[in-house]
Every structure is written in structure tokens, then in C-alpha cells.
């Protein structure tokens, strides 16, 4: 039967002065048993990652454990000296991280880095270590383990690298595995495979897993027990079913409600006329190569044809590398498409010269993904919004006044116009981005993953704002996202892209209800907590 592997008792961690709150963790008590996955869920800044680092005693030196005990294997890790901790790390408790791209040393081979675990903690010979590494790589089902061992991190995909990290973590059969948002950075299909892999290995090796995530879908898929955290404290704890279906604490309820359900709201009536038609657009990249030889050709967009009804929202979904962003940038002519036509209000955008594009660009505006990078840090908020009209000849005073009005429209305090971007939260910045796009009163708005960098609750508010504005201003929107749930909420029509081509398109309810193309089906089934999302949606209606 399962016995407690790790128990935290009133763990409190103090932050250095000047941080936004005194304690990273206050009075956290929980326990993880063997052969069990405990999910710790909460928004960014809730202290969940800090807890993982506290357990491994890898906190940055200005952050200190104030009080509390961390009992593991009969020992209190708070009191353990560095030598003792080094034995625990890797052998007793293992850890995998969120960014597979940077979590491995770029200059050493995968086999070498996994082998290092054995070299540290065991006296095995070189040959034995290589054999164990091969076995581990097969365990985590990496394609062609022999080549993978000799490969460098940059030669593997994100998913393969995460598998290598898991192999490394489980090398010495640790009692406890801490997974700090291991799948957040992965595509939804790869994410599904990794979650399944962790589940199988955990059951086979009876390890205790402390799984940290912000995505309730993932919680629904693999959690045995759940801990919900807010501002460094545990607000609710219990079995997965209890917490998900009968949440006690208001914050938990609010979090679950913010998760957009998979089923689409009732379809809106769409006008017959198209405001924008895309016909046969394609774009190929030639990278590297010397004097024409040996260049690598990637066809980012292959012969895409779509149409956007006036006032409607066309969703373009697909995984990273499917070409959706390139298509979006072709539409606003940030990138020049190789072939095809883009007709907006009867004018073919693809054929316009550089100066005409600059004049006509007021009709089609774009909202960007990264709240931090999409606003010039050196300009005040009001100035950012007023930039468009000023460029197109409006005088400065009226443009700034107009900008203040737009602030109200997007739900921001007009007086905030004088502050700099770094003084706003992520959600507020996306609103400024939106205001900037609307300042030129465009006919079409292209939104490239506008909410995927935001917390779930903030995501919901911005989507609601978009829906209101669409109604109020009669906006036609092209909405690019990798998150099918978000697409289901906001899009009237949706097109699914894979490897640069549109594999399926149609009304959202039809495409999500009865997916025709196998890839769309795979996408839908890979969404974690699929049934939870569906059941929950009927409950929350």
C-alpha cells in the first residue's frame, strides 16, 4: 500500500524586502504518498514553483526557509546539511522542468548528461552506465535511442528533450518525482504523450509525483489528489473528483469557471458578404546554403484559401510550426506572400507596392502575442495608442484625446495614459495593444495568439472584451490560436492548419462537434481533461 514519502509541515519561506509580498510560502502543509500523483495548481505567482525549489533546497540565496519541516525518508530536509542534500537530490528526489529548450546543457550529448546521474551517485563502470542509459531511453520511448544518446540537445524536438529529462530523472528510481509544469511549453499532441508517459512510469515504478501546473485540464487528466494554491497559501486540498466537481473555496470555483469549455456557444447569424477573401496564398523560406547549393527550403504556407464574412470571427488553429503565424503576417503584409491574392474591400492586398501598403494599412490592424514585447518600453501608453493616427496625419492633440477615449473602451482608466508599459500588468498591456489597433478604426482585426501568454482568469476577461467590441463596432476578426478551447469560445468559423495547409474548415460547432479530418480528431482528443471540459461546460451553462 502507499506510505507517505514526503510531508511538508507549516513550511514558510521569506522573500527579500522589496518583493511584492513578505512570504513566498506561508504555513504550507501537505503530504505525498508513493504510487500517487499530487497536482499542485494555481496561477502564476502563487508560489507553486517556489515550493518545488524549497523541497530541493535550491532557493536563490536571498530567499530563506523561515520555519516548518520537510520530512522525507525519515529526515527533515530543512535541517539537512549540503552534503546530505546532495545525496537526496537526484537519488531520493528527482525534478523535471518547464523549458525543455534550455533545461539541457547545449554543449554535451544527451547520453553523457543522463549518464552523469549514475556517475554521481553510483560506482558503475562506463560500459554499465551506457547500457543503463540505453535502457532508460527505451523506457521513455524515444525514437532510435542509440542515435539519441549521441545527439546534442539542439538536434532533438521539444517533446524528445522532455523525454530525455524524464529518463534522467528516473535513472536512479527516486522515491519522489517533482514535475514543474513539464508540458506547458509543448504542443497539445506532444503534451498528451508526455502526460501518458509520466502516468505509466509512475504506476510501474510506484514513484510519488508532485505535479505542478496552472492548467485544470491537465489536473483532470492525471491527478489523484489536488492542492490549490493562491498567494503562497493552500486554499483547498482533496481528491481530484472532489475538488474538480465540488469545489469548496470561492477561488477554486472562480478558477474552474474561467476554463473555457470545449463546446461552442450557440452560433451567431453571419452576414452573406465576405469582407476579406484569401485565395491560393503560399510562402516558402530558403535558409542557409552557400551560393544556392545545400539551402534548406521550408514551405511555411501552402496554397491557403479562406474567406472572412463581414462582422464574423474566423479562427485559425494548429500546432506550432503549422504556418498560422506566417499566414497572419502575410495578411497584414509584414511578410510578402509568394503567390495568391488577399482581397479586402475589393482591393487585392497581395499585389500592393510598399508605399500603397503603408497608406492602406489603416484598414487592417494586428494585435500581438507577447504583452511585454509588443509595446515600445520607451513610450507612454497614450502615445502608443495615438501613434497610428499621428502617422496618418492626425494632429497630436486630437490623437491623444481620441486615445484617452479608447482607453475607456478597452476597460482601462484614461488617466493611465501617462504611465509607461512596464507599469502595467500583462492583461492591461494586451488592452493597450487592442486600443492601439482600434485607433485607426480598421475593418479587419488580426489577433495572433492574443491571450495565450495570460493567466486563465485574465484570459477570460480579455476574450469577453473582444466579444463586446466585436458586437459594438461590428469588427471582423481573424483569430489565431493553438488552444482549441479558446477558439471554441470566440470563433464563428474555424480553419485547422497542419504543415502550412488548411486541412479542414467550417462552422465552429460542426468542426468541433463532428471533426472530419483525422488530424482534427487527434487534436480534439489530445486536449487534456477532455471529458471534464465537456461535462463541466454543461454544468456551468
Amino acid at each position, binding site marked *: 500500500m502507499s506510505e507517505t514519502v514526503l510531508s511538508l509541515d507549516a513550511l514558510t519561506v521569506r522573500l527579500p524586502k522589496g518583493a511584492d509580498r513578505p512570504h513566498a510560502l506561508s504555513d504550507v502543509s501537505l503530504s505525498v504518498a508513493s504510487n500517487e500523483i499530487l497536482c499542485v495548481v494555481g496561477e502564476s505567482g502563487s508560489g507553486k514553483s517556489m515550493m518545488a525549489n524549497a523541497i530541493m533546497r535550491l532557493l536563490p540565496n536571498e530567499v530563506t526557509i523561515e520555519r516548518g519541516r520537510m520530512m522525507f525518508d525519515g529526515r527533515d530536509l530543512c535541517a539537512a546539511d549540503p552534503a546530505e542534500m546532495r545525496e537526496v537530490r537526484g537519488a531520493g528526489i528527482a525534478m523535471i522542468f518547464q523549458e525543455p529548450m534550455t533545461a539541457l546543457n547545449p554543449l554535451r550529448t544527451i547520453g553523457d548528461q543522463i549518464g552523469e546521474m549514475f556517475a554521481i551517485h553510483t560506482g558503475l563502470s562506463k560500459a554499465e552506465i551506457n547500457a543503463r542509459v540505453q535502457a532508460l531511453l527505451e523506457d521513455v520511448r524515444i525514437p532510435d535511442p542509440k542515435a539519441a544518446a549521441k545527439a546534442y540537445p539542439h538536434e532533438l524536438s521539444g517533446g524528445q528533450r522532455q523525454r530525455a529529462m524524464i529518463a534522467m530523472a528516473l535513472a536512479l528510481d527516486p522515491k519522489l518525482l517533482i514535475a514543474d509544469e513539464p508540458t506547458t511549453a509543448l504542443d497539445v499532441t506532444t503534451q498528451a504523450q508526455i502526460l501518458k508517459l509520466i502516468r505509466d512510469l509512475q504506476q510501474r515504478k510506484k514513484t510519488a509525483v508532485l505535479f505542478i501546473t496552472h492548467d485544470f485540464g491537465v489536473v483532470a487528466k492525471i491527478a489523484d489528489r489536488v492542492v490549490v494554491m493562491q498567494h503562497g497559501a493552500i486554499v483547498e486540498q482533496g481528491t481530484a473528483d472532489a475538488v474538480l466537481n465540488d469545489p469548496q473555496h470561492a477561488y477554486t470555483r472562480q478558477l474552474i469557471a474561467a476554463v473555457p469549455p470545449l463546446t461552442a456557444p450557440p452560433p451567431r447569424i453571419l452576414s452573406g458578404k465576405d469582407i476579406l477573401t484569401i485565395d491560393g496564398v503560399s510562402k516558402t523560406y530558403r535558409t542557409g546554403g552557400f551560393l544556392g547549393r545545400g539551402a534548406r527550403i521550408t514551405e511555411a504556407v501552402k496554397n491557403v484559401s479562406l474567406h472572412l464574412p463581414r462582422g464574423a470571427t474566423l479562427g485559425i488553429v494548429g500546432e506550432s510550426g503549422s504556418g498560422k503565424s506566417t499566414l497572419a503576417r502575410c495578411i497584414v503584409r*509584414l511578410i510578402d506572400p509568394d503567390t495568391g491574392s488577399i482581397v479586402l474591400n475589393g482591393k487585392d492586398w497581395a499585389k500592393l507596392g510598399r508605399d500603397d501598403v503603408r497608406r492602406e494599412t489603416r484598414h487592417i490592424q*494586428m494585435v*500581438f502575442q507577447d504583452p*511585454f*514585447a509588443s509595446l515600445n*518600453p520607451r513610450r507612454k501608453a497614450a502615445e502608443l495608442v495615438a501613434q497610428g493616427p499621428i502617422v*496618418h496625419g492626425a494632429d497630436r492633440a486630437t490623437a491623444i484625446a481620441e486615445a484617452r477615449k479608447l482607453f475607456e473602451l478597452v476597460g482601462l482608466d484614461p488617466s493611465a495614459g501617462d504611465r509607461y508599459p*512596464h507599469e502595467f500588468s500583462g492583461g492591461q498591456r494586451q488592452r493597450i495593444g487592442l486600443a492601439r489597433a482600434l485607433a*485607426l478604426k480598421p475593418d479587419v482585426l488580426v489577433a495572433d495568439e492574443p491571450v495565450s501568454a495570460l493567466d486563465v482568469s485574465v484570459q477570460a476577461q480579455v476574450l469577453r472584451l473582444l466579444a463586446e467590441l466585436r458586437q459594438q463596432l461590428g469588427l471582423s476578426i481573424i483569430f489565431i490560436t493553438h488552444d482549441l478551447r479558446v477558439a471554441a469560445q470566440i470563433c464563428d468559423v474555424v480553419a485547422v492548419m497542419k504543415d502550412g495547409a488548411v486541412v479542414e474548415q467550417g462552422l465552429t460547432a460542426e468542426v468541433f462537434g463532428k471533426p472530419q479530418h483525422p488530424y482534427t480528431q487527434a487534436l480534439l482528443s489530445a486536449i487534456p481533461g477532455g471529458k471534464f471540459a465537456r461535462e463541466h461546460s454543461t454544468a456551468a451553462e
Partner: protein
Amino acid sequence: MDAVKRYFRSPAAVIGLILLLLVIAMAISAGLLYPRDPLALAGRPLIWPFSNPRFLLGTDNSGRDIAAQIFYGARISLLIGGVATVIAILIGILVGAFAGYYGGWVDNVLMRITEAFQTLPNFVLLLVLVAVFGSTLTTVTIAVGVVSWPAPARLTRAEFLSLRNREFVQAGKTLGMKDVQLILGEILPNALPPVIVYASVVMAVAILLESALAFLRLSDPNVASWGNLIGLGRDVLRVQWYVSAIPGIAILVTVLAVSLVGQGLNDALNPRLKSR
């Protein structure tokens, strides 16, 4: 501004600032404390420092007051260092901005020229420029400036390359801004901080280059520069070593101050964008 608070938190930066202000004060007060021309004959040559009340730091082998030359020398070094740095930074930004923003053959051509300047040992080029255009104060300053622009050019180009594809620049494009507006309005303000901080390194190098030129007796003789004094002191080095030692220390202190201030600025000012 919290950047200012952060600057003063590091002791090294504060020391650097104090030293720099001291040198600037010396430069300003030179006219008041030593009204006479520092190159005029003030007394017997080679009087030891502190041995004669009228000459606190003694006299050099041309009978000129060393203290006066140190004060006036501060003016020259700061002037040469400052102006040469401005020239180097301006050319550097111009070349770096165009190479970084436009890329393609423009980048290739400009980079070949930058590489040519960096492959050619800069001091040899300086010698040629001075031999050709003569060694007056203006030619030496311009020559030092012209020799030190490749480094800031490379830095500006790197900044422009990374900022060019940033989303707020693409947003500017979608708003219909011309290239010039994008370069000057959007990219440059964000590319400047690291280049300005690098200016302290360029200034330090400029002062050292001028003193090396003066040491080889190729600098402007009608001007009381520290380098000239060191060069002059070279002939009496074995006995009156102070003639070279005092200006050497003055250069060391000034360059040290400039570098410390530069480092302090760098730590305090790292731009918001980059630190995320």
C-alpha cells in the same frame, strides 16, 4: 528614477563618479589656480616635488610647472577623450543602424569595412593618420575618433539585429510607419543605452591612445597634455622619475573613473526590455 537609486547603491560606481568630478573640477579650476600659460617658463627645470613651495609638484625638464600642466592636462584629456568618443559613437551608430536594420548587401558591405578597420592594427592606422594630417590637437582628436568606431558599430548592429524583429517594431510597421520613423522613433531609443554605456570604454581607450601618441612625440606640442609630459619625462626617467610618474597616475585615475562610471551605468541602466 530607480535606475539612479540602483546606480548609487554600488560603491565602485560612487567612487568612480567622485574621481570623475574631481578631474572635471581640476579641468574647470585650471584657469583660476594657474592663470599663466602652463607651457611658460616658470622656474629652474627639474625641481623635485614638495621641495619648493612655489611648485607643489616640481618642474619638468623645460622648467614648466608640473601642477599647472596636470590641471590643464585634465582639460585636454577630457576634451580629446570626449570629442573622440562622440565621433566614434556617431559613426558607430550610423554604420551599425544601417547594417543592422537593412541587412542583406548593405550589411555585408558595411561589415567588410568594419572588419577592415578592426583587422588593421588601430595604432598603426593612427600613426598613418597623424603622419598624413599632422599632429595638431584637432587632427589627433579626429584620428583617435576615426580609429575607434568599429567597436560601437558592432554593438549597435547587434542591438538593431535583435530589436528589428521585436513585435513592437512590427506593430510600428503595421501602423504604416516609414523605415526612418521606425529606426529613429522605435529602435534607436532602445538600442542606445548599451551603446552609451560602451562610450565609457571608448573614452578610456581614446585617452590611452592620445597619451601613447604623445609618448612617441607625435601629439600636439603646443598643448599641455599629460601624454606630452610623460614623453618629456622619458628623457629624465632614471633620476627625476616623477616627471613621468605624476601624469601617468593622472591618466590612470581618469581612465579608472571613466570605466567605473561606465560599469555603474551599465548595472543600473540595463534596459527594461532586455532584463525580462
